[in-house]
């Protein structure tokens, strides 16, 4: 009990600090990578390579004037940044980030809370992030803010369904909702990583994750071309900064989730040495490194996509969500469930590399007509064909 209390407090402190520092560095990384992609230098004056830029930004935000619109709902206006920021951090609590650490008093799981419903907890708290944005938009008493808030609600509810459906496939394969079990199932070989047997689920998940985190190409809630800055138009100083911290915390959590659900979590590829007891501190450190590397790749992917793709139009966003992603996710779950039933219950295969490769083949077969259809319908390629058809 004492060990549990002490280790939990220590883990909470460490995870919170690491995420906050990570978020600060991520704001810098975003600007540097954006600059690099646009053949500029980016912020490089404060500290070596601009490393202290986040600290300078933080200081500036603390010292700036806090503004409060005249007819805003004061309580909600103050509360909204905090509400948007808390769920993003809470979600991270159930993600296992390394192999258990042995201590003289027993093994300590490297996850803040190993819940029996781990995975559903993520969906539950992920769905709460929208409150902050909606309340910010409404309480500002500004029509652009309100429009941003409305868009955020519609967008997040639409894509949440696709997100949930895509993860049903992971549950079907994993057979359990605890994330430690999901990782253990994937750790046998490289091909048992869920991204191979469930490639299309990963595709749906990543699209929905971009929509859920309000990142380009789906950042309609703040679309500055139409809505000034959307839901945070009226915010300044630290409250504005809180929305940024929330956005980046969401990205960190989404990246960690992709790693956990589809890329084997803290599993080190090409070896099974790291998966089984006896646990050693070396294993903990190395698996933590593997987890960090994988997560960093997805963080980079988020930035990369943001500075590559243009923004969707709102009707395109909704059409993609309801007419493509949702039916696709539903159909995919049906197909995968049938395939697993055939392989597991009818042919009696146990889950191993052969099983995963068979499902991977099925995914490839499905992917060819899918991407053909997606492109022919011009749902992703843009509005030119659509407008031509209308005229």
């Amino acid at each position, binding site marked *: 009990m004492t060990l549990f209390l002490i280790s939990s407090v220590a883990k909470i402190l460490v995870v919170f600090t690491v995420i906050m520092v990570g978020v600060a560095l991520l704001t810098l990384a975003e600007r540097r990578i954006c600059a690099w992609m646009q053949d500029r230098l980016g912020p490089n004056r404060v500290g070596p390579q601009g490393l202290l830029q986040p600290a300078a930004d933080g200081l500036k935000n603390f010292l700036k004037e806090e503004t409060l619109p005249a007819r805003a709902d004061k309580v909600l206006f103050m509360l909204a940044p905090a509400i948007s920021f808390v769920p993003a951090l809470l979600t991270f609590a159930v993600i296992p980030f390394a192999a258990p650490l042995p201590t003289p008093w027993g093994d300590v799981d490297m996850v803040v809370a190993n819940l029996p419903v781990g995975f559903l907890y993520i969906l539950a708290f992920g769905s709460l992030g929208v409150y902050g944005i909606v309340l910010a938009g409404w309480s500002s008493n500004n029509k652009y803010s309100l429009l941003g808030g*409305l868009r955020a609600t519609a967008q997040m*509810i639409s894509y949440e369904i696709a997100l949930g459906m895509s993860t049903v496939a992971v549950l079907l394969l994993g057979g*359990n909702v605890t994330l430690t079990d999901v990782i253990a199932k994937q750790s046998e070989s490289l091909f048992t990583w869920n991204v191979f047997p469930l490639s299309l689920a990963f595709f749906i998940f990543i699209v929905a994750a971009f929509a859920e985190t309000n990142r380009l190409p789906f950042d309609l809630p703040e679309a500055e071309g139409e809505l000034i800055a959307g839901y945070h138009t009226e915010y300044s100083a630290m409250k504005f900064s809180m929305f940024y911290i929330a956005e980046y915390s969401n990205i960190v959590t989404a990246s960690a989730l992709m790693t956990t659900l589809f890329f084997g979590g803290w599993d080190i590829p090409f070896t099974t040495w790291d998966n089984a007891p006896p646990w050693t501190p070396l294993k903990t450190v190395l698996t933590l490194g593997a987890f960090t590397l994988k997560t960093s790749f997805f963080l980079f992917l988020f930035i990369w996509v943001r500075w590559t793709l243009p923004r969707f139009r709102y009707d395109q966003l909704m059409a993609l969500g309801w007419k493509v992603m949702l039916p696709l996710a539903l159909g995919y779950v049906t197909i995968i469930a049938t395939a697993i039933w055939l392989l597991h219950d009818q042919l009696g295969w146990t889950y191993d590399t052969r099983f995963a490769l068979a499902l991977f083949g099925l995914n490839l077969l499905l992917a060819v007509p899918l991407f053909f259809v997606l492109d022919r319908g011009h749902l992703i390629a843009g509005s030119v064909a659509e407008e031509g058809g209308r005229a």
Partner: protein
Amino acid sequence: MDGTLIIFWAFAGLAVVSALSCITRRSPVASALWLVVTLFSLAALFVLLDAQFIAVLQVLVYAGAIMVLFLFVIMLLNLGRPGPTDLKGPMGLTVGVLLAGGLLVQLLGLRRAVPPPGLALAPGVIARAAAEQGMVPAVARPLFGTYLVPFEITSILLLAAIVGAVVLAKRKL
């Protein structure tokens, strides 16, 4: 006092206070948000009962989806600002008081009620079931086995609601 009991009373109190705030606030947005707090407190009470799965579904479905839709509709129709009272005249007030009194009597009656023996579980049964087959199958197996027909009939109810909504929204199909 037992730690669990302290947590129970904290969340039970929060649930009652937020539920009262939900029905007494004039602004629809405030009411909706207080309802979210109520749902959260109920989820916490479910966790205390060892029903983590139900607790998570409570947050996922009610707090995460349904209440967000509530807020969406409130904002879309721009009902957010405090409106006039819903109690119309002395007649409305009398009916309201009578209904509330009836509910109160029922609540007092419930205090003496004993759950039927079929529903009472021995302590530790839920924890053991969860350890044996995981949290979700403990709920899923009865739902898709023993109670399959009631479950499927519920979906017809939902379908009827959807059809009704479409008919109301689109007079001309």
